[in-house]
């Protein structure tokens, strides 16, 4: 059969494989930038489709990247979608003309049973033996030709991470005869004996093709015996986290001073160049003071993400999840919740989206509900500002610095309250038995320097984009609201007191006075709804606007240190541990749960907790004499 006789419309291919087999990398390699990402209708499983053209035949292929699945017997929404598409029973996907099953050559034992399940369906199948170069380099013995003979379907080697590593697969697809088409297939009914028989078949094939795996490196076993040790493991985890928070303060000091000086210089230059007028006020008080106040925290964010990326790349994270599983189980969470929760330290939004991999709906909702209690990176500037202003830089016990300790304590407070909330949920609305863990611990890898730098640059880019985009825009709006209407002639106080923002702040003060917030803080909380860091910038603007006369925007930190009481500062810190005000998080919860119920409950309980925590903190601090 030749190309001319092939159907005119694009041929549909489905890419399927077990999780972590390198399927998505191969998909990217095949389709390049010609991808469409959307969701399957009605559910929140990501649907990725791309196109490519066969070089030999000129045929257009429509390639669907299916969610990872261990087998055709689904235990999660992802796996159910993958099965339905493969069977041709999905409501909106056509039955695929050809299946491409990606298998990890370094883990054939786990991958081959899916191949056998698929082969049994009778739908045309090509096997992509992925990571074949890595397998050889690590001392695996994989015989492609023998595997092809044993399986009875085409097997090609691919290296998804290398340009050109997809060529043999493309050629095999181009050689495939698409005249045979298979429509809907009934779901296979596999009995106990079938499942065992399949697994035995896998072993038989592996023996037949002489698949040999290298012995595990002794050094890795020794590493695991420390990392997973019942006493040493948790100590190591605590030490790593501790070092991370210490570094955020001790390493960042120098670059932060540099940025601060730069911002001040820009402010002075503008003030000296422009004549007195609204534009000068907008640039100096609105933009430089507001944006500068946030920008200063860039070095601390880079340091935090340096640690997170190294931990992620090295394969340590699932091991940390193992160490914490007992604790998580006690409060009714599955150990799997650890990874979404850890993502939430960057931002709750991707964390909440990562809960899609949790099979049980109940576990998933519980994880979503507590995700915002993980201290996201947008809260770091607020913490850092307040800690820098109110907590002395002092060493404790000779090795720790007090500021790092306080930051560590704030992160711990977030985690502990998450545990508490999860526990309450378990006792009340989310009752039920513990669910299985069954988590794979991947081999250790040396973090790749290039990946690390790319990841860090990505973070820097995102931060600068936020600063230059939404934060800048909100600062300008806030400046406008704090400048108009202008004070009446003969007014004595600073202009902001007569402005819209000033009036708003005074109104909000009735709500926030009991927890020690002044009107400046009350104003800053409002734009903080859009992005938490904006609260810091807003304080910068508000204080800059309140400064009388020709004061150029000074650094914010000494200013609040001299005007707020310690009780107020601690109360604001407590508020931000819960920080109910993040619209993006609430929006994503609404979408992921497909109801208004959970975002409303979340906003309500976070606000209540934040208010309560701040109230207790403030009044305790005042009673202890920190009220002035």
């Amino acid at each position, binding site marked *: 059969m030749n190309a001319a006789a092939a159907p005119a419309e694009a041929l549909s291919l489905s890419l399927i494989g077990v999780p972590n087999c390198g399927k998505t990398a191969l998909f990217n390699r095949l389709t390049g930038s010609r991808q469409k990402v959307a969701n399957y209708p009605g559910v929140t499983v990501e649907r990725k489709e791309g196109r490519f053209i066969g070089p030999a035949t000129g045929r257009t292929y429509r390639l669907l990247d299916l969610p990872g699945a261990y087998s055709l017997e689904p235990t999660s929404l992802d796996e159910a979608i993958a099965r339905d598409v493969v069977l041709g029973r999905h409501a909106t996907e056509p039955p695929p003309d050809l299946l491409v099953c990606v298998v990890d050559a370094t883990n054939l034992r786990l991958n081959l049973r899916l191949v056998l399940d698929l082969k049994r369906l009778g739908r045309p199948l090509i096997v992509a033996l992925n990571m074949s170069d890595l397998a050889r380099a690590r001392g695996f013995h994989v015989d492609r030709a023998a595997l092809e003979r044993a399986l009875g379907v085409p097997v090609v080697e691919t290296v998804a991470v290398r340009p050109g590593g997809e060529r043999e697969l493309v050629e095999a697809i181009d050689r495939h005869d698409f005249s045979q088409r298979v429509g809907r297939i009934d779901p296979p009914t596999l009995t106990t004996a079938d499942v065992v028989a399949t697994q035995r078949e896998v072993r038989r094939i592996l023996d037949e093709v002489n698949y040999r795996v290298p012995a595990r490196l002794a050094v890795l076993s020794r590493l695991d015996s420390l990392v997973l040790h019942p006493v040493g493991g948790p100590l190591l985890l605590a030490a790593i986290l501790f070092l991370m928070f210490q570094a955020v303060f001790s390493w960042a000091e120098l670059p932060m001073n540099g940025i601060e000086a730069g911002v001040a210089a820009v402010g002075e230059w503008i003030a000296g160049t422009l004549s007195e007028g609204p*534009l000068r006020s907008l640039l100096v008080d609105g933009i430089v003071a507001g944006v500068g106040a946030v920008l200063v925290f860039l070095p601390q964010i880079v340091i935090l993400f340096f640690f997170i990326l190294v931990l992620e790349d090295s394969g340590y994270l699932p091991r940390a999840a193992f160490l914490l599983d007992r604790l998580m189980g006690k409060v009714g969470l599955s150990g799997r919740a650890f990874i979404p929760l850890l993502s939430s330290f960057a931002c709750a*939004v991707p964390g909440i989206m990562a809960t899609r991999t949790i099979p049980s709906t109940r576990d998933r909702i519980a994880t979503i509900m507590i995700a915002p209690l993980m201290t996201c990176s947008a809260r770091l500037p607020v913490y850092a500002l307040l800690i820098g202003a109110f907590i002395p830089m002092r060493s404790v016990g000779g090795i720790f610095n007090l500021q790092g300790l306080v930051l560590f304590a704030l992160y711990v407070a977030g985690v502990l309250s998450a545990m508490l909330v999860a526990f309450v949920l378990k006792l009340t609305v989310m009752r039920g038995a513990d669910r299985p863990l069954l988590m794979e611990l991947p081999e250790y890898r040396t973090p790749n320097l290039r990946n690390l730098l790319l990841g860090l640059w990505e973070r820097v880019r*995102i931060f600068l984009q936020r600063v230059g985009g939404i934060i800048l*825009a909100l600062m300008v709006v806030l400046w406008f609201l704090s400048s108009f209407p202008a004070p009446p002639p003969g007014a004595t106080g600073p202009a902001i007191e007569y402005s819209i923002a000033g009036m708003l702040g005074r109104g909000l003060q009735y709500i926030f006075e009991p927890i020690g917030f002044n009107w400046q803080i009350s104003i800053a909380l409002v734009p903080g709804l*859009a992005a938490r860091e904006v609260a810091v910038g807003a304080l910068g603007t508000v204080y800059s606007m309140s400064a009388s006369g020709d004061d150029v925007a000074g650094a914010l930190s000494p200013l609040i240190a001299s005007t707020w009481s310690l009780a107020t500062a601690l109360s604001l810190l407590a508020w931000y541990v819960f920080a109910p005000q993040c619209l*993006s998080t609430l*929006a*994503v919860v609404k979408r992921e749960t497909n109801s208004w119920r959970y975002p409303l409950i979340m906003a309500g309980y976070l606000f209540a907790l934040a208010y309560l925590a701040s109230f207790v903190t403030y009044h305790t601090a005042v009673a202890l004499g920190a009220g002035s």
Partner: protein
Amino acid sequence: MESLLQSFAVGLIVLSCTVFAAWRLTPAAAKLKMLNALSADASHFWGRWVARLRKSVREELTHGCGSCSQAKSHLRKR
């Protein structure tokens, strides 16, 4: 004269920032609805611009997050 110019520049900056912030904070579904209402004339420059906006809003809808692009990069990595 210069103060008049300053006022004009300030007005322009404030207005554009307000529009930008409002757009960024609107939920993606509402944005899409607005764009669909606008797209009647897709022939000239304005129409192409609307189409481009719609594409980016669709992406935002599937990636999940309006004001934080963190989500996007996170998913890309997986």
